[in-house]
């Protein structure tokens, strides 16, 4: 279980997170929604320790994430970055097998390559892709490779940062379906940040809306449409008028 209590984060005078309280139960898929620049990615990076939060506590299974040993902690996570964040200088299979070939439990190259090809197949890519470089792939293929890399070491928790941004609706649907399948199949805890409502409905067990640095609303996906919260209603229907200023 991931639990955040009163998490604050500022960048200079810009107070991005102003006391976030959120719980993500083990084995569930939580989607964080919210407008651009509301701190969704910062929240996710605070949990991973990529950004140090200023105040509050973040715990994973009761342990304060700022006090745990980093390598075993990070080994529990997989992450799909918004732009894929594939390493340009490495071939696709080397990207996917990156973690497998390093650290205490490193595998021989041949075995790591086989697992990478298997994971690529799992996300719908052929073995022929394995020896290409990321620059030779389309945006959708890069996302899938990023997804394969996120699941390669079979993590307990996977974070998805804007998984469908920049993709056409068909490819976005493919990615959404893959994420849902993988989350169910692997039984992982998933946390996705997005402002794509199609993704939300395809991926989420529960939803939290981040607005002005706090969790404005949280609840199961089934309650999303029925909530009277004006912020949520404006956001999910994409209305310009409402409590959320259109020009921020």
């Amino acid at each position: 279980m991931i639990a955040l209590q009163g998490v604050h984060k500022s960048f200079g005078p810009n107070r991005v997170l102003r006391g976030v309280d959120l719980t993500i139960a083990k084995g569930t898929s939580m989607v964080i929604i919210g407008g651009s620049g509301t701190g969704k990615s910062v929240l996710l990076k605070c949990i991973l320790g990529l950004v140090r939060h200023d105040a509050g506590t973040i715990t994973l299974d009761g342990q304060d994430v700022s006090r745990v040993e980093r390598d075993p902690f990070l080994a529990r996570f997989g992450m799909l970055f918004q732009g894929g964040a594939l390493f340009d200088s490495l071939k696709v299979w080397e990207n996917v097998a990156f973690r497998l070939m390093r650290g205490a439990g490193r595998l021989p190259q041949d075995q790591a390559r086989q697992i990478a090809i298997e994971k690529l197949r799992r996300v719908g890519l052929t073995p022929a892709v394995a020896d290409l470089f990321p620059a030779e792939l389309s945006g959708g293929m890069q996302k899938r490779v990023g997804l394969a890399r996120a699941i390669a070491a079979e993590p307990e928790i996977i974070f998805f940062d804007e998984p469908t941004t920049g993709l056409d609706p068909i490819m976005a649907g493919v990615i959404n379906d893959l994420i849902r399948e993988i989350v169910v199949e692997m039984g992982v805890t998933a946390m996705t940040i997005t402002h794509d409502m199609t993704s939300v409905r395809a991926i989420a067990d529960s939803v939290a809306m981040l607005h002005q640095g706090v969790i404005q609303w949280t609840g199961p996906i089934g309650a999303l449409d029925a909530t009277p919260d004006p912020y949520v209603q404006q956001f999910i229907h994409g209305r310009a008028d409402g409590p959320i200023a259109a020009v921020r």
Partner: protein
Amino acid sequence: MTPAGALAGIGRPVLAALASLGRIAIYAAQTITHLVRPPFYPREFLTALMQVGWLSLPVVGLTALFTGGALALQIYAGGQRFSAEAVVPQIVAIGMVRELGPVLVGLMIAARVTSSIAAEIATMKVTEQIDALVTLSTNPMKYLTVPRVLAGFLCVPLLVAIGDIIGIMGGFAVGTGQLGFNRASYIQNTVNFLEGSDIITSLIKGAVFGFIATVIGCLYGMQSGRGAQGVGAATKNAVATAAILILAANFILTSVMFGQ
């Protein structure tokens, strides 16, 4: 402007420069401590050796060749004023080995390698590849910085040695082809005049300049701002800082090794 305002105007950039130097010193110290602690990444080191060393050879060689030739012409022309044209081989040798070889190679490395490292790492930062490394339990300092800095520290002295030789050959070509020096006596004068300490100081300077050029490239890449503008600024500032620090280090090293 009030006296306090004028003082603040001077103090602010001085403090910023000191803070910058402090960051560079801390980063360099961190790099050194990581150099001796595993894990090591031999493949990244070999790639860096290729980038820093092998691929820099053409630019280093051409720079040294033309500089050696020009130096011979200048010494000959200047020496004629007091009948000292005969010292061309000696001055070319000492000028190239003690000063121009290391400095020019250092500056060329700053232009070619520092810029490339800063731009590459800054792009990795902007595209979240550095964050991805961290989430994959890989320390960016060990994976990106240490191999490049070690390659710079080891390769640049070799490049300096090659630059010294090519520079002297440039002087030799001009001296014997254009200025009428006898080939055998030119070589004899060069060899007789150079001392082992000249060569050693040249190599020490190369190692220091290689370290500076690569550390600065890595640091500015890691500290890059967002977007294309951030990458551009990181690259520009890295090259300028590396060039200035190389020249400053050259002065300090020369003072220490040759100062009276």
